[in-house]
């Protein structure tokens, strides 16, 4: 048994990815090409290759430690903050490379909004939170900032709840409201891609339902990539689903067919709860 596992880690008994995603009508937004990643000596991602369709919602699922968050955080290079991280392969956003010595990481991150596992509003007013991406860009036009804040809050379905207390601290909001505020903040900079790292794992079911509703609304306008532990959630909100295991992409396909009839045994085992 132990021997078998070691050979799995070395990566020889993995079949090539079963690849049958639904194609969107807007083409490909983010391309991952033979991407591998190491944290020091430990390898976290093994030659992942997949395309994210523009305007669709793609869910990344898999058991803990399978590399789905690592893959997501590689897309806007948040993994750069970790000492000893190194990568191989390439990712491209609209054909432009994400990895490379001459890439302006800050400009890149501005094209991708990110929502984290735990709501992380800044200790500022609600408005200031939302317009933070514009503030760091040096926008000072008050009228413009005000309109951008309203648009982002409306986009995140939060406007009606906070319009009377825009100048109050964001820390006074409930958890679900805080998370929607973070989504508003992520879309305020008008990004192309919205990365969500288990956005509902710290929320109660009602707040989760609201976020899922919001994800549905955001589809089409943004390319959504959502990491989730909750397979029902993946089934509910996503168009395509990627199943990862031990750093490999096992199966990538259209959500409906993948949940109904997975093509790989391991995917089936995971989806039916036999492991994970």
């Amino acid at each position, binding site marked *: 048994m132990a021997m078998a596992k070691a050979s799995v880690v070395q990566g020889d008994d993995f079949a090539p990815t079963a690849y049958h995603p639904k194609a969107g009508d807007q083409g490909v937004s983010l391309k991952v090409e033979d991407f591998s990643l190491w944290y020091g000596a430990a390898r976290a991602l093994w030659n992942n290759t997949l395309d994210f369709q523009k305007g669709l919602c793609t869910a990344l699922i898999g058991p803990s430690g399978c590399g789905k968050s690592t893959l997501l955080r590689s897309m806007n290079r948040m993994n750069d903050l970790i000492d000893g991280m190194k990568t191989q392969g390439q990712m491209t956003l609209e054909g432009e490379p994400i990895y490379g010595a001459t890439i302006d990481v800050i400009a890149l991150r501005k094209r991708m909004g990110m929502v984290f596992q*735990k709501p992380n509003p800044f200790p500022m007013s609600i408005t200031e939170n939302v317009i933070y991406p514009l503030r760091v860009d040096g926008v000072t036009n008050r009228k413009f900032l005000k309109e951008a804040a309203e648009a982002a809050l409306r986009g995140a379905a939060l406007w009606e709840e906070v319009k009377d207390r825009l100048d109050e601290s964001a820390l006074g909001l409930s958890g679900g409201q805080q998370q929607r505020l973070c989504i508003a903040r992520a879309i305020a900079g008008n990004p192309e891609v919205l990365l969500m790292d288990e956005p509902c794992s710290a929320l109660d079911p009602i707040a989760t339902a609201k976020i899922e509703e919001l994800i549905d609304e955001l589809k089409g306008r943004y390319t959504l990539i959502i990491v989730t532990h909750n397979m029902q959630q993946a089934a509910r909100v996503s168009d395509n689903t990627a199943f990862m295991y031990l750093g490999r992409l096992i199966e990538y396909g259209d959500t409906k067919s993948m949940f109904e009839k997975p093509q790989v045994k391991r995917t089936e085992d995971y989806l039916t709860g036999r492991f994970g």
Partner: protein
Amino acid sequence: MSDPTATTAKPILPVRRIARSDLAARGEPFVWIMGAALVIGLTMITGFLAFVIYVGALTFWPQPVAVVTTTQGKVIAGEPFRTETFKPRPEQLEGASPEARAQVEADLGIVERTLYRVGNYDLFGEDFAWVSTFEVKSTTYPKDMYFTERLEWGPFVGRMKELDAAGAKQASPTYKQLRDAHALAVVRRAEIARLEKVEIAGINHDIEDLRLGIRRADLEYGAGSPEAAAAKARAAEETAKLEARYKVLEQKVTSLRQIDETYAVTLEAIDGQTKTLPLSNLVRFYPANDLSVGEKWSIYGARWIEFITTQPREANTEGGILPALVGTLTMMILLSLAVAPFGVVTALYLREYAKQGAFVSFIRICVNNLAGVPSIVYGVFGLGFFCYILGGSIDQIFFPEKLPSPTFGTGGMLWASLTLALLTVPVVIVATEEALAAVPRSMREGSLACGASKWQTIARIVLPRAAPGIMTGLILAMARGAGEVAPLMIVGVVKLAPELPIDMTAPFVHFERSFMHLGFHIYDVGFQSRNSEAGRPMVFVTTLLLISLVLMLNAFAIYVRNRLKRSYQVGQF
């Protein structure tokens, strides 16, 4: 092992039934020890504070003047200062009456004695006298005894014999007459002081400037060059004008003094010796045994005001402590201004930018150890580096005409503040690093994901979040800086510095000047003055003031910190 019955039949550990868990396990003795430690600590702190406040607050309260007649017929008059018990030697008991002797014997040879502040140092040669209780024949509190504070020679205790208002002599003047005459004398004294300290000092300052101008011209163009000669001629002309004005002023002062001296008062000590002195030499006087409560309070208040707003007199044992107060306050502010940015920037680099590794750990250990270096070492370093190397270079570049007398090349306010900043910077670095480390990673990531650069993240998210922690470090640094005296003694604190670091002569701030410090003042008055007994109350009052000052600065810093904290408190989740 494989047989399950074996384990049930022979348990590996015997089953124990304990009626009561023992005392050590329940931890009660430790609770008591911890509680006792807290009580001891609190008692010492509150006891110390209560003592300082009690003695300090009572010092300026006007005491009655007792006239004590001893059994040997000696009469003394003075304020009872303090009382203690002692065991007299046999020869000290020789003059005592047999009854007194018997009484002393009954008390196991222990007697009580009281220290009286008799004043009149110029007549008696000492300020204080001990009187043992057994020697006392009678103690009275005559209503005509005056306690008089003078500009020189300390207090005078005695009667007001005669008031001489420019020839109009009045024997045994009333308190009101004296006060009216004194009010006028105070105005004259203030006018003389103004002429001397402002006008004449200003002229002296201008003459010195001209002399320095000549020297500067000499240094710039070479001695004997036509430019230097021209400058010299111009300066000579100006100096002559100034000297003429000086003569006029000097004349005016002399004549004012002559007028002033015609208003005199004759004081009579308890032993009949008299002393005549100008009315303007009196600072304050009052019939100590004939005061209403209101008058006592007004004297008490006036003494506090004098203490806080005037220059010291009589080798610092009398008068005020204004220069020490201003010196301490200015130094603390300069210290904070120097230490806050320096410490914060260092900590920011160490925590946010430097690559964490063995080298940074080593630096961190060094910084922590710096906090343990004896402060006097910092003083020596400050003298060598700041005063001599930095200050010496500044003098050579900017003030060559004043050399060899140094401007910045000696101890002064600026160097003392920087030395203390160096001494306290580890505290700020450590506190700031901790505050930065406590900022949650999610905040930084949130900001970076919004497309903020690292610097924007630090400036907009991390630093504001860490501000309360940084303020705590600053409070600790200020508290430590306020308590340091040893390094200051080397880098600029002096016994007497009548010129304040901030005043009305251009350029208004004089951080090169040496200054006075409350901490050093306590040491100086308490242990370095001629009359340590007279200086004792001043030690307590100065301590009280220093503690209040530190408390006020800390209270302000804590207020700022709490305001910062309030804006970051975490809401309900």
